[in-house]
């Protein structure tokens, strides 16, 4: 009996049957709501899918998703670099560890809106506004992970390095970096999700491309259907990146586990 049951469950888990059932149920509710409230409040699922096919065909999806992703690449990419440097400083120098930890705490408590407003004042209606906002919001998330990773390096392994007279660089390369990388990857993964969410919000103000811009524009021209379409695009970008980049990265790094 457990065999038969287990086999059935394995198959159902593989196609994620419970989620598919839930999705079907939600589609039915969605369709009902669309009929009840009309296309302005709630466009029907069919119309949204048709819209999605439209933006993919016209290539608009690449323009806006590309614009958002390039801003993320700059803002989030610099955040990762700075976070690694902060981790390095806190590993090498004790006062830096305290300063970095407190900076991370303060930045983590700062609202997205603070950075959006400040960057609009500083950079005006330019590309720099969403880039800077993304940078400031993702920096503490990645840095917190890197600092934690650097702090969790096994002192006993470093002592082993000392016993065998490994050079400082060799200890760093063979012990510190490999211990920190899983934390860095975890931080980057969380940070990237956050970057996508934050940069889209920042794009509402001042720029003329990107998923955030086009969603807000669709709202202004009363094209609710397109708001839903771009929301789906955003989710798809997130899922694909997670699957393609982070899953393979985690698998590669975890070979020895």
């Amino acid at each position, binding site marked *: 009996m457990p065999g038969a049951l287990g086999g059935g469950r394995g198959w159902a888990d593989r196609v994620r049957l419970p989620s598919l059932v839930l999705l079907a149920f939600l589609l039915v509710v969605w369709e009902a709501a669309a009929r009840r409230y009309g296309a302005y409040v709630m466009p029907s699922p069919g119309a949204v899918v048709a819209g999605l096919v439209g933006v993919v065909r016209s290539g608009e999806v690449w323009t806006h998703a590309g614009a958002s992703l390039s801003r993320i690449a700059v803002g989030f990419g610099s955040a990762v670099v700075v976070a690694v440097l902060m981790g390095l400083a806190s590993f090498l120098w004790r006062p830096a560890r305290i300063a970095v930890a407190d900076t991370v705490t303060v930045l983590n408590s700062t609202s997205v809106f603070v950075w959006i407003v400040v960057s609009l004042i500083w950079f005006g209606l330019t590309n720099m506004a969403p880039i800077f906002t993304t940078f400031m919001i993702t920096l503490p998330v990645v840095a917190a992970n890197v600092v934690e990773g650097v702090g969790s390096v096994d002192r006993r*392994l470093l*002592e082993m390095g000392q*016993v*065998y*007279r490994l050079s400082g660089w060799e200890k760093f390369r*063979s012990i510190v970096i490999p211990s920190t990388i899983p934390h860095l990857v975890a931080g980057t993964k969380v940070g990237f999700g956050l970057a996508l969410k934050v940069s889209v919000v920042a794009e509402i103000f001042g720029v003329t491309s990107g998923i955030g811009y086009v969603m807000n524009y669709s709202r202004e021209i009363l094209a609710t259907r397109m708001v839903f379409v771009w929301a789906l695009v955003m989710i798809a970008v997130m899922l694909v990146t997670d699957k393609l980049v982070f899953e393979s990265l985690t698998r590669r790094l975890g070979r020895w586990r």
Partner: protein
Amino acid sequence: MTASVRRGGDLRPEAAGRDRDRRASRRLPQGAAAPRPLAGGGRHGLPDGTRAPTSRAVASGRRRASRVAGGPERTGAVKLEVEGVAKAYALPILADVSFQAAQGEFVCLLGPNGCGKTTLLRIIGGLEAPTAGEVRIDGRPVACGGTRDLPVGVVFQEDRLLPWMTLADNVGLVLKPQGLDAPARRTTATRYLRFVGLQGFEHYYPGRVSGGMRQRAAIARALAIGPDLLLMDEPFGALDAQNRRIMQAEVKRIWAETGKTIVFVTHSIEEAVSIGTTLIMLSARPARVRELIRLDGPGGGSPDPRGVVDHLNQVIMEEVVRQQGEDAERP
């Protein structure tokens, strides 16, 4: 496996040379080696002085014993000197520990729990500085944290292998400070892994092999740097009884084939008696050398290992009781 292991051992010219030495000394009548005085031994009354009042020397006349008794006397060189070593943290841990070990001796450090065996080993290895006293290896003082030109191999309680490196890379890593290039490191690593019986496992990650095999790899790493002294800190504490016995036999074999001077910390009297040539029992905190016993052969060489075990069990119980008494008096 044993066959390949032997071959591994014989690849090493020094081991082969020592085997010749041993065969030669074995042919000697026992009396021939014994009267030769130990260099530097007289100053602290070791080993003869300590034999008389406080400790029991177990004499032996077996075949195997003559080789081991010939070990220290053969070269006559004092490898390790521990002189008046004291260490205090919040409490005094080591009061005044002194002993010497000759080249090729297998010293087991025993003592009640928490008496400072590991601390003493760490001081010998230069991982901690003593509060007082000095440790010398080949007459040269060990500086804590300093770069030593005398390599000391350490096997810790845990294997301390890097989990993200294969066993061969783990061993190869410690050869980098010697300036060997990658192929040379690989060759040496493979040779020592083979020597400890890990042939075929060179490319396994530590997480994929058993605890005993990880400890074997850690021993291979310690041997690979060609140490003058091998320090082992309860290396088999985490192993099950069966693996423990196997590894004890392995260490005995490695010691016999390489002729290294070994200092081995253990809390098991049976283990110490079965593998050591010299047993040092530390007293309760703050520790001194309570007893120093020279066995004439590892395990089988002694006429009455049971007697030594019983005696040491009695001593350790006295020390544990004393420790508890002192701890109770402390507020």
